[in-house]
């Protein structure tokens, strides 16, 4: 599934702890157009709950979450 998602921008957030992942994604999402997708790769386990909370609050859509051994990859569609 995730392999089929085409990201318009990739954010490498590996090694960054709270609050950096949400701070960076909130900046990064503004760098794509509405309807485009940002791929964000984190290693912060907290981002598993933080990214959905951030997306709900700001009206964006997480279209897929892929959990690897250490890395978590979010595909986020800019809605507003």
């Amino acid at each position: 599934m995730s392999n089929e998602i085409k990201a318009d921008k990739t954010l490498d957030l590996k090694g960054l702890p709270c609050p950096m992942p949400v701070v960076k994604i909130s900046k990064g999402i503004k760098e794509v157009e509405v309807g485009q997708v940002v791929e964000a790769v984190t290693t912060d386990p907290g981002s598993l709950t933080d990214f959905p909370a951030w997306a709900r609050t700001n009206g964006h859509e997480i279209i897929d979450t892929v959990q690897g051994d250490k890395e978590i990859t979010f595909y986020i569609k800019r809605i507003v």
Partner: protein
Amino acid sequence: MEELQKQIDELKAQMGAMDARIAGNKLSMIVFSGDLDKALAAFIIGTGAVAMGMEVVMFFTFWGIPILRAKNKKAKGKDPVSKMFGAMLPKGASNLKLSNMNMAGAGTAMMKSLMAKKNVASMDEMIEMAGELGVKIYVCEMSMDLMGFKPEEIIEYPDLTYCGVAKFLEEAINSKIQLFL
């Protein structure tokens, strides 16, 4: 007809007053403590709130003010008591101590090395980031005066204003979240 217009005008005025009372998507925070752990929490919540789409205002008062002292700036013409306050309180964000387990500085040093190892932003970096994100800082004028701090020894920050309690309350009334740290 005239009566109806009058009623409409009254309703409009009431709506306007109600609008002014609806809390905005804003977080206002009082930073009262000057401890490393509490200051770090304040800036993590502040920058996180910007990421969540909120406007953020931070009010620094009492022991929170030394967080904003610039490491390499000095103010002239201080009286002895102000000088004593200056010497005894942390000189800026990089000199704060833990509220717990400080152990004559050993605990704080250990925490700082852990923070660096785990990539947690330092206090100086957090303040810089807050500035970039548009977090507004207000500084309590009365505390500054009481402790003998002067504006010329405070850090360069993009949006920093000296104020009194009324400014905080105006912001707090219009905020969804208010915190005291």
